Structure formats: structure tokens, C-alpha cells
């Protein structure tokens, strides 16, 4: 059991995180203050929630690059619905409506991909533009302030010492993990991802699973908006710009194969923590104003290193021939047409 864990990809990610934390806390011991660690966890909860949904999409062999724009659009809609300057819906009606918006748009994406037979990268590339434009259109290009005080304080409220947002993230991660590991639907995602054709031959419904994955991603994005956006002083329409890249990167660095059919949620969650940790870490290393400008470069080089490292590790592991259902390195390509 332990030896399997040491050989696993998650162990490598964990080792990287621990060594980074060790180095930084040697440089500046303030880094280990609970405030900082909580801040990192709070920042990583929104990407972690969306990554849960996106992971299902990627496992089934598709991709969704519109989550950043969807994040911005849902945030704008939430601002319009709940803000005291606008419609001022009560939370009990407003929150379910916000969830519905994300779910329905996710469902729409799924319909385009399954019934419309539009390749997912093209469909979501189009939606990336459409949703970003719609967010600007709905908000009229203005920033929205004045979210109800109840919502703002609700996200700050602690429960057993942790803010509510972290608990929601933990719940979504646990739910997704249970679904992937123990419910039949989870195994089916691995099935259609590793061989579309074989999965169809044993009678799995491809469109139903993909529709579910996209709708789930939409719903997760709405949840992320609800827990993350009230932290901000105002809602800008360009909120979530580049968010899709962060989430896709996390899913990939977390060891999910972009061809589908391989990957575990523990890796994705660790990757999210790792990626969101980088910026605070660089601040604590005190690299100065000139070094600050290099943050993007360091992050980028880090992503390249992670991708290459993941690849080399997979190659190494597939040589040592240990395969189980969710770490199967063989990727079947193509299907007879």
C-alpha cells in the first residue's frame, strides 16, 4: 500500500509541494502562519471546484476552454440578480437561479458537442467569445458593486476554523471522488475516454455521459462563483479572464491524460494547490520589484517543467508495468469508421 503510494504521481506532486513549503519557510518563517496557509486554500477552492467538473470532461476525451468566460458571465448575472443596486432578489431565490444559469449553459455546451457534433474545442472556443461578450453586454461594461452583506459575510464565516468556501470545495471534491471511484457512472467516464468504440460496443451511452460532464462543469463553475466572487469588492465583466488556462493547466499537471481515460482526482487537487501556491510563494521569497515582473515567466517555466515531468514519469511507470483501472497508461487511439 505504502510502496504503491510512493511510486504514484501524487506522491511526486506532494513532495514538490512539501519541498517548496520547506524552502520558503526557511527563508521567511512567517509563511507558515495559519493566515497564509488559509489564504492559499481559500484561493485554491474556486479553481479546485471547477477542475472537478473539467476533469470529467477531459476524462471523457473532450475539453472545455470556456470556463473562464462562463465564470465571468455567471458572476455578472449573480451581481445583477443579487446586488442592492440592481434586482435585489432574496438569496433563497437568487442563489438557485445562479446555479441554474451555469447548469443550463453547461448543458447547452454539451448539446452542441453531442447532438450538434461540433468538436468540443471549437464549440467552447466559440462560447469563450460569446459568453465574454454577453457578460459585457449584461453589465453594460460597468462594475457591479453592492452584493448583499449577508452573502459577503456568509463566505467569511468560519466553520471549525475554516471559511465556508473551503468546506464547499471539500464537499464538491469528495462528491466527485466518490462518484469516480464507487459509482458506476465514474467508471464509465474512464471507459469512454480510453476507447470510445469499445465503450459503445458494450452499450454505454456516450452522449448521456458527455452531456452530464459538461452540465456538471457548468454547475461547478456556478458554485465556484458563489463562494469566490463575494470576496471581491466589485464584480468586473472581465472577471475570470485566463481562468480557463489555470484550470486546464491544473487538470493536466494533475496527471489527467488530455486524450481521456486516465487520471485521478487526488492529483488534480494537489496540482490546484501547487499552482495557486506559486504567487504567494514568490511574494514571500521577496524577489523585489524587478523580480516581481518575472512572476509570469517563472509560472510558465514551472508549467512546462510539470508537463514534461509528468510525461517522463508516465513513460517510466508504464515500463515498470503496473496498471490498474484509473492509472492505465495505454491510450487507445482512433476507431474504425
Amino acid at each position, binding site marked *: 500500500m505504502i510502496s504503491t503510494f510512493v511510486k504514484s504521481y501524487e506522491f511526486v506532486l506532494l513532495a514538490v509541494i512539501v519541498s517548496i513549503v520547506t524552502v520558503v519557510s526557511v527563508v521567511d518563517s512567517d509563511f507558515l502562519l495559519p493566515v497564509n496557509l488559509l489564504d492559499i486554500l481559500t484561493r485554491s477552492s474556486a479553481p479546485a471546484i471547477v477542475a472537478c467538473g473539467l476533469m470529467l470532461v477531459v476524462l471523457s476525451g473532450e475539453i472545455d476552454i470556456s470556463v473562464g468566460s462562463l465564470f465571468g458571465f455567471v458572476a455578472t448575472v449573480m451581481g445583477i440578480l443579487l446586488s442592492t443596486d440592481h434586482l435585489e432578489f432574496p438569496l433563497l431565490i437568487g442563489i438557485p437561479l445562479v446555479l441554474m444559469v451555469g447548469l443550463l449553459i453547461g448543458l447547452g455546451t454539451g448539446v452542441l458537442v453531442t447532438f450538434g457534433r461540433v468538436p468540443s474545442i471549437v464549440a467552447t*472556443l466559440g462560447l469563450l467569445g460569446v459568453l465574454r461578450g454577453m457578460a459585457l453586454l449584461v453589465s453594460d461594461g460597468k462594475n457591479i458593486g453592492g452584493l448583499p452583506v449577508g452573502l459577503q459575510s456568509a463566505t467569511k464565516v468560519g466553520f471549525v476554523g475554516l471559511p465556508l468556501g473551503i468546506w464547499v470545495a471539500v464537499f464538491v471534491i469528495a462528491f466527485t471522488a466518490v462518484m469516480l471511484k464507487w459509482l458506476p457512472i465514474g467508471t464509465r467516464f474512464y471507459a469512454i475516454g480510453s476507447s470510445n468504440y469499445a465503450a459503445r460496443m458494450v452499450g454505454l451511452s456516450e452522449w448521456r455521459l458527455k452531456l452530464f460532464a459538461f452540465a456538471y462543469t457548468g454547475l461547478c463553475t456556478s458554485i465556484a462563483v458563489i463562494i469566490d466572487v463575494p470576496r471581491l469588492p466589485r464584480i468586473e465583466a472581465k472577471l475570470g479572464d485566463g481562468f480557463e488556462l489555470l484550470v486546464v493547466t491544473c487538470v*493536466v499537471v494533475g496527471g489527467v491524460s488530455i486524450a481521456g481515460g486516465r487520471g485521478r482526482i487526488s492529483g488534480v487537487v494537489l496540482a490546484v494547490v501547487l499552482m495557486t501556491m506559486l504567487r504567494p510563494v514568490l511574494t514571500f521569497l521577496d524577489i523585489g520589484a524587478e523580480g516581481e515582473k518575472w512572476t509570469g515567466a*517563472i509560472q510558465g517555466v514551472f508549467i512546462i517543467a510539470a*508537463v514534461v515531468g509528468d510525461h517522463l514519469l508516465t513513460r517510466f511507470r508504464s515500463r515498470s508495468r503496473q496498471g490498474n483501472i484509473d492509472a492505465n497508461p495505454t491510450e487507445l487511439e482512433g476507431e474504425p469508421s
Partner: protein
Amino acid sequence: MIQRPREFGWWHEVVLLLLLMAVVIGAGMFVPKFFWSLTQQLRLSRQMWEVALLSLGMTLIILTGGIDLSVGSIMALSAVSFGIVFEASESLPMSAVSCLLVALCCGALNGALVVWLKLHPLIVTLATFAAFRGIAEGVSQGAHYSGFGEAFRGLSHDNYLGISIAGWSFFGLVAVLTVMLTNTSWGRYLYAIGHNESAVRFSGIPVDGMKFSLYSANGVLSGLAAIVLVSRTGAANADVGSGFELEVITAVVIGGTSIFGGRGTVIGTALGVLLIHQTRKFVDLYLQAAEWTPILIGCLLIGSILVYRACSRDSK
């Protein structure tokens, strides 16, 4: 046996051309001063050439089943190096050469990761997308470079028969690439790689070398586009070319190139670029609300694929 005439393979381009004419005529009803005036069209076509040049390289890469998300970031990095070298040496040829060299290195890095580590191009270029832009920010430290002189500005502002040098080089490339794609073995191999890469590999064709040179060449093309953009706007900084990758991919896909590779033409891409340009101008001049641009382009993208799917019988 009666020999059947060769099937007409340009339906997609014909449909695009009709659509383009419909857009120009339709938009002209609202803004006749621009859409129906050749001089105005030519004057504003200047803004189109960077995306147009990039879309040619992207077409070839997507034809082989790959993708390159890092073109905008390569533009930023090479534009910044152009500015830095110019500031140090005051020599235009030297800065242009170093700009293209940096772009070549960026493209070669993409190619090396795709070919020798066998990583998925989407992932490789997603990573380099972040890295190149970050390096451009770090190297330039937020500086703006300008004052490149009148001669350099002429590259995108001096017209020959109404079109700048950048525009003519685009048309030249379209002609050359069309001939190469349809009439040389190199071009046919590109389509073949997109259809079934391992079959091409087993036929003894140097797939790795072809893909590597394709990504490298796309890097050089991004450097070229950066030079054109810097010449047009007169300023270079680390924000150059942000968001270009999406517009370029949209143009290629609207132009009828299959995102899975193996199908598409350069002429289709050129028509796609024109269609996007006209849509953008219509939004700018008539609706005068920039937020409609991504909405219309996104709908155009999804709509064109839906229509194509409805009309075509093949499953891919």
C-alpha cells in the same frame, strides 16, 4: 468505362465566398460609406494582415492534427526583443533579424516538445503560451519601446496598388502554399499526417522532421507578424498580440479546416480571415459596441460548423 469528371472539391470555399458577399452587401445597407467603397476597405484592411499571416501557419499545423496556442505570446516576446535590440543598436535590420531569431527559437521549442517528447500540442503550447508571455514581461520590465522611424512605419503604411507590403506578402504566401498543398508531395503528406499519422510514418516519410519544421516556421511567421504589428502601431511591449491565438484559430476553423486535421485549404482560411474582418468592422462602424464582436465571431464559428455538419455526410 466512362471516366467520371473529378469531383468539385471547393464547395466550402464557394459557400464562404457567398457568405462574405452577403455580409459585405448586407452590412453595406447600413454603412454604405465603408462597405461599398474600395478605398475605405483597402485603407482599413491594414489592420488585418497580422492575423492573416498567422492564420496561414496555423492552417498548416491544424492540417496535421496539431494546434499552436502560443502564437500571440511568441509575438510578444519577439516584439520585445525587437524593441530591446533597436534601443541598443539603432539598427532596423539587426533588430528585425534578432526578432525573427527569437521567434524561431520559440517555435523550435514547441516543435521539439511536440516531436521528441511526443506531448500533445495543445498542452505544449498552453504551457509555452504562459511562459513566453511571462518571459516577455520579465525581460521588458513593463517598458514600452517606440520611435522606430518613418522608414519602418512604411512597411505597413506605404501602399502599392492600395495594399501594403504585409498584405502583398500574405497574398504571395497564399498562392505559394495553395500550389504546394495541392501539387507537391510535401503538401499531400501534410494532409496524410492529419488523416493517419502512423500510416504515414510507416510509409517511411520523415513525419518528425516535417512537424518540427512546421512549428519552427510558425514561430518565424509569428515573429514576422510581430514586426508588421509593431510597424503599424509604432510601439512594442509585452502586451503585443494578446488574444490573437483565438482569433487566428477561429479564422482557420471558419475557413473549413477540420480541427482534427486532414481537411482544409489555405484559400478557405483567407476567406475566413476576410469574413471575420468584415464582421469586426461592421460591429465597430454600425453597432459601435465592442462587446458584440466576440459574440458575433463566436456565433459565426459555431454556426459554420453546425451548418457544415448538417450538410456533410462523412462522420469526421
